[in-house]
């Protein structure tokens, strides 16, 4: 199967991506179709191996949490996929292309782990999100009407359309995190790779972030979410991969994971988390972006 070329609808993916084989289908998926395909892969820095022996395939429509304690190599794993550290062994393919030959970086939407977006100069939320459009613009190109529409829509998806022209330095930590998600969405990626999207933000922001992730999941977005706060993302997950000491120690469904942890499937995951009151709000409510993009298929619907 040839890949679907990126289109405006690929903003956070849509229902069309969950093709044959289905999300996480165990029945021998077509390798060329996997978004991420690792075989005995290892990543690290210079000669220092941090994660090794990782065999993993992620398919369109999957929402995968990558869990593990600090230092387990979860960030190193996703940064390796993004080409931010060194690929030290095994096979790694992105969209069927070996990582060493992969150039179509805009297909991966990266939301880095950052506690703040504090800039040393003034920059509005839409100026930050506009960075996501650069891979689609030529060297002399500037944002055109279509780019501006996508920037506004991306801010709408994360519920910040009313703050588009606000200096990001004045936004709260959670709002800044959502600006980073919008920046990734503006690139119209086919998979979102998020590093600790909910860490270190206040309760109100965490609820909104959960809603945003829910909204993206309902649109069929493929997501790889590095986290140690399962609570905030558990309603959107289709799969959990756990790392420990640089190796995969669990790979399976959230239900199976909960079973092994000895808690109900929708229960607490046992990781450190003080916010037991967090209730992921109803995700059936229509977002402002939904009417703009009727083609967005709802997986939950």
């Amino acid at each position: 199967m040839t890949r679907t070329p990126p289109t405006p609808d690929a903003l956070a993916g849509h229902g069309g991506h969950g093709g044959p084989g289905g999300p996480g289908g165990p029945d021998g998926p077509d390798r060329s179709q996997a978004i991420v395909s690792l075989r005995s892969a290892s990543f690290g820095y210079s000669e220092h191996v941090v994660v090794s022996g990782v065999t993993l395939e992620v398919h369109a429509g999957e929402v995968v949490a990558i869990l593990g304690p600090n230092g387990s190599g979860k960030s190193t794993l996703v940064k390796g996929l993004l080409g931010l550290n060194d690929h030290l062994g095994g096979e790694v393919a992105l969209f069927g292309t070996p990582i060493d030959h992969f150039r179509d970086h805009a297909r991966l939407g990266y939301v880095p782990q950052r506690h703040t977006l504090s800039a040393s100069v003034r920059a509005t939320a839409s100026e930050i999100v506009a960075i996501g459009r650069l891979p689609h613009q030529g060297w002399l190109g500037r944002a055109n009407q279509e780019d501006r529409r996508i920037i506004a829509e991306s801010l709408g998806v994360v519920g910040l359309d009313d703050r588009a022209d606000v200096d990001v330095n004045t936004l709260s930590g959670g709002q800044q995190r959502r600006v980073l998600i919008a920046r990734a969405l503006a690139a119209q990626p086919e998979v979102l790779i998020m590093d600790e999207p909910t860490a270190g933000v206040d309760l109100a922001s965490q609820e909104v972030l959960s809603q945003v992730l829910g909204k993206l999941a309902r649109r069929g977005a493929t997501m790889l979410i590095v986290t140690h706060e399962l609570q905030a993302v558990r309603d959107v997950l289709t799969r959990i991969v756990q790392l420990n000491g640089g190796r995969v120690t669990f790979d399976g469904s959230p239900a199976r994971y909960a079973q092994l942890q000895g808690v109900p499937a929708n229960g607490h995951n046992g990781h450190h988390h003080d916010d037991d009151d967090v209730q992921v709000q109803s995700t059936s409510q229509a977002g402002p972006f939904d009417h703009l993009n009727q083609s967005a298929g709802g997986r939950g619907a």
Partner: protein
Amino acid sequence: MPDILTYSFMQHALLAALMVGLAAPMVGVFLVQRRLSLIGDGMGHVALAGVAVGVVTHQAPVATALVFAVLAAVGIELVRARGRTSGDVALAVMFYGGIALGVVVIGKSEGGSGANLDSYLFGAISTTTDTDLVVFAVLAVVVVGVTWALSPRLFAVANDEEYARATGMHATALNITLAVLTAVTVVVAMRVVGLLLISALMIVPNATAQLVARSFRSAIRIAVVIGVLCSVGGVTASFYADTAPGGTIVLLAIALFMVAASYSGLRGRIRGRRHNEAEQHEHEHGPDCGHPAIEHDRHVDYLHDGHRHAPHEGHYDEHDPLKTHDESVRH
């Protein structure tokens, strides 16, 4: 014609000032963004060694200074890209080495006095020749053009280098390019404001613009306007007041900065007095938060238990519940 324009040396001086006033803040904004405000100063030190070598070997000092400054620029970025903690020290060694070499080499020149260096250290805008002017014009056009073309990417890399790399941008190449642009600007500006004051013209207009601008785009524009006003205004003022042009330009830029700083401080204080912050607020308002949104006076209030909450920076302001003019409820 005003009498200042009847002198050809002043025509040259004003043209040179215009070019420097335009180019320096444009490059400088990215240095401010990368928190490298003093790097131009360091490159000026190294350029001095280039000037001295040019004087001693009877080459054009501008050309040798350009070679030295560009080599220093590439060296700086390579040291920084290696990310060693000793990088800071390596830069200090390079910068002081540059100025020391300049002083020693110039001492060996015929006539051998530091006086030769004065025109480069403090600027000698009125001695700009036709050839100088053409060289500066070409360099300034290259700096402005390349900076404009690359500005979205320079902004992206300075804002979040890791993200820029993840999207396939060549961050190191862009950083080296910015360093080279800085080096060229240093050389163009050394005859106008002098090597010791170059950094000021790259940084101070941007510091002023940051106080009054609302976005990165508007900040660049304001900084360029301030840069041109200060450099052309400073040269003009120095003609009538018989002062050193370089110093006059920089003092003018600093005066504008102080005016802007007082204005923004005053504005903050008045706004602080006028605005009424809502109590501890756990809920976050947004387009789909469930609270009716009331649009008025170019912003949105959310009706929350009878209070009107307007998002302001990281908190919410209480807005007057009785204010009803020119508004429409969106929900």
